[in-house]
């Protein structure tokens, strides 16, 4: 009773799956199949250093295979594969727990928007550099006075004939101090209504007048910065889309960001929490059953929620293939990031006092990381549009409830 998929197409996909599996088996170094922490992530960029020789090898192999961005067009260095093929690669990488070879805001956010809104020379200039990990990007949207209410942003770009002159500041810019370029929302028409006077601009962070100040977080990391623009000259050709039409670019890009964030927690919880020896050894079990009834009940709630979220990711994928529209994609950021926070709380509960170590002796690395990740998980329901904003969007766009 399933929708008819032609048999030869299915055979082709199965064939591709087995080839992908073999290739990954042969080419993914053992060390790149182990659980990772922030220090193991490779972001590329002008000043990048590989976290390890294996990480370099792994990245280069995937890059050469064309699988960094399997779905992007070949003319810009992408793999030119279909969504089904790309999904197979993702699934097979997940099956061997292969690490993501390149972490990149360029891939997750900017690239798709460039492919949609960029002109030919902008695509030529930026997309291959994203895929090859040559340029590291950061996102300059939020400002001290404009967070959820992004459209009120004030950082301005004035038309100076052949260039824009940018002045103002951005905040919570993840990785700004390590990035080469920044994609920004700037105000180009101060007299227009909020969303109508905004443009989408690419800025080289080597340009004179840009500076960054790192901000320390509750996790102890300082992953993000305040970014200052002081009379920065930006060439006109760095404008993406039309002047004053940046909001539509930003909105398209936000869809990708939220999708990504909703997938953060999509590994099966049973892989992370329960059978993983690491977490299991902290659980008090009796006859294979978690003794603490409250904890067991919370674990099942979480497992079920994640199971449902995973199935819903599949559903949205199938709906996309079938050309069916549904409300599911719009709820995923909310449910995914809320679940991510729940997971971190559960891990803390499981580790007990061993999960509360901040640094130094008495705690192993996994224990220390758990706490840092727990602290970091609090940001998930804030970044990329807070949970409350997600609920507003659902109420307005799906339920079409009256706005006050």
């Amino acid at each position: 009773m399933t929708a008819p998929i032609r048999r030869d197409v299915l055979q082709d996909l199965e064939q591709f799956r087995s080839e992908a599996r073999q290739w990954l088996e042969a080419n993914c170094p053992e060390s790149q199949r182990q659980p990772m922490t922030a220090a193991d992530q490779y972001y590329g960029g002008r000043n990048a250093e590989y976290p390890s020789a294996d990480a370099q090898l792994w990245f280069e192999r995937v890059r050469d295979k064309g699988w960094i961005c399997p779905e992007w067009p070949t003319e810009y260095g992408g793999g030119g594969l279909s969504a089904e093929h790309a999904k197979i690669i993702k699934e097979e990488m997940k099956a061997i727990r292969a690490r993501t070879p390149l972490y990149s805001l360029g891939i997750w956010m900017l690239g798709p928007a460039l492919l949609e809104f960029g002109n030919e020379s902008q695509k030529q200039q930026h997309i291959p550099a994203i895929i090859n990990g040559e340029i590291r990007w950061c996102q300059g949207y939020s400002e001290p006075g404009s967070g959820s209410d992004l459209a009120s942003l004030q950082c301005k770009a004035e038309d100076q004939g052949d260039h824009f002159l940018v002045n103002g500041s951005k905040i919570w810019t993840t990785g700004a101090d390590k990035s080469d370029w920044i994609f920004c929302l700037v105000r180009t028409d101060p007299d227009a209504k909020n969303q109508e006077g905004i443009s989408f601009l690419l800025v080289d962070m080597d340009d004179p007048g840009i500076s960054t100040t790192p901000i320390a977080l509750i996790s102890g990391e300082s992953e993000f910065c305040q970014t200052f623009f002081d009379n920065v000259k930006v060439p006109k050709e760095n404008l993406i889309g039309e002047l004053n039409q940046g909001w539509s670019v930003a909105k398209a890009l936000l869809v990708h960001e939220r999708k990504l964030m909703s997938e953060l927690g999509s590994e099966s919880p049973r892989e992370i929490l329960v059978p993983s020896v690491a977490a299991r050894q902290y659980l008090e079990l009796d006859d294979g059953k978690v003794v603490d009834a409250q904890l067991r009940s919370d674990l099942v709630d979480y497992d079920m929620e994640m199971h449902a979220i995973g199935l819903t990711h599949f559903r949205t994928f199938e709906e996309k293939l079938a050309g069916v529209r549904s409300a599911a994609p719009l709820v995923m950021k909310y449910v995914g990031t809320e679940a991510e926070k729940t997971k971190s709380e559960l891990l803390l509960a499981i580790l007990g006092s061993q999960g509360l170590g901040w640094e130094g002796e008495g705690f192993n690395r996994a224990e220390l990381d758990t706490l840092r990740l727990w602290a970091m998980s609090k940001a998930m329901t804030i970044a990329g549009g807070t949970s409350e904003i997600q609920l507003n969007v659902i109420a307005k766009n799906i339920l079409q409830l009256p706005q006050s």
Partner: protein
Amino acid sequence: MALVLNEEQRFLQDSAREFLAANAPVESLRTLRDDRDALGYCPETWQKMAELGWASIILPEEYGGLDFGFTGLGVVMEEAGRTLTASPLFASAVVGASALLLGGSEQQKTDLLPRIAAGELTLALALEESQHHRPTHITTTAQANGDSFVINGRKTFVIDGHSADHLLVVARSSGESRSPQGLSLFLVPREAPGVSVQRTIMADSRNAANITLEGVEVNAGALVGTLENGWEVLEPVLDRGRVALAAEMMGLALEAFERTVEYLKEREQFGVLIGSFQALQHRAAHMQAQLELCRSVVLQALSTVDDAPEQLPLLASLAKAKLNKLVKLVTNEAVQMHGGIGVTDEFEIGFFLKRARVAMQIFGDTGFHKDRYATLCGY
């Protein structure tokens, strides 16, 4: 693609919705309740449903079935959940028919399935013995007596027990009182000597009964499946029932939710539509998110019945637990967001609230399925 309905299934959905709106809206349930209808469902409507093929939707063609699979059944269950339609669909065409399909002898199948498919004959599963779903806690006994068996015991919460032609009785022929081993299934005519049926009036105005079996004698041909291995049939039958029920609950939740959202767009207080209050918007949006997750769970569980039965226990418990929680949340919020009118009998939202509570108990409450899911996952 298991998680998207195909054209045939969408067509079925449209025609089911149309049929039920015309023939069995919530108003019909109210009438059955207020008239204290002896049968508890409308036989003419049931006959029409059977003519549409709904009673045979999961049955193979050789037994007069439509062979439309569980996803097709789910579509109909969901629509019947929207209208709270009382009918033997669940007890007979899903649970009863599944038991015969999975455990019945060829003789039983050829004798009974075509009649079930035609809506002429109905079954009811006589399983529970306490106020909670404990499918292995069976003290009803079946003692061999030459070629026949003698059954003694008490059953409760037997869905459609007062109206079904045959009861499918779960009895113990050996084993400890809580063990899955030693259970056997017997087909017993409801009118058989020694069977006494007391109809119970439940909150949802649907049909259930308490049944006493005293020295009920059946012959060996009444055995469904093999002696003492009834659990092998019963467990997958229960899972199929849970999944079908989850589909019904999906429809119930959607309908109650949609009615509530409509109300938020109609009702004015403080000079504005109450749907403009963020306190209500966020709760409604949260429900929408849960509805989306549950939609995926139900579709996957339905297709698991046909395509991956080895995963059915996990998926059935996931679906039943998730949907139990969903209907509780949605029906409570639906009443609350309607204000005073929500607690009136005149207003239909209360029917959804009450059906939800009964459906939540059938074949396992949230606690039961959370425990089972955790156990299946190994913790």
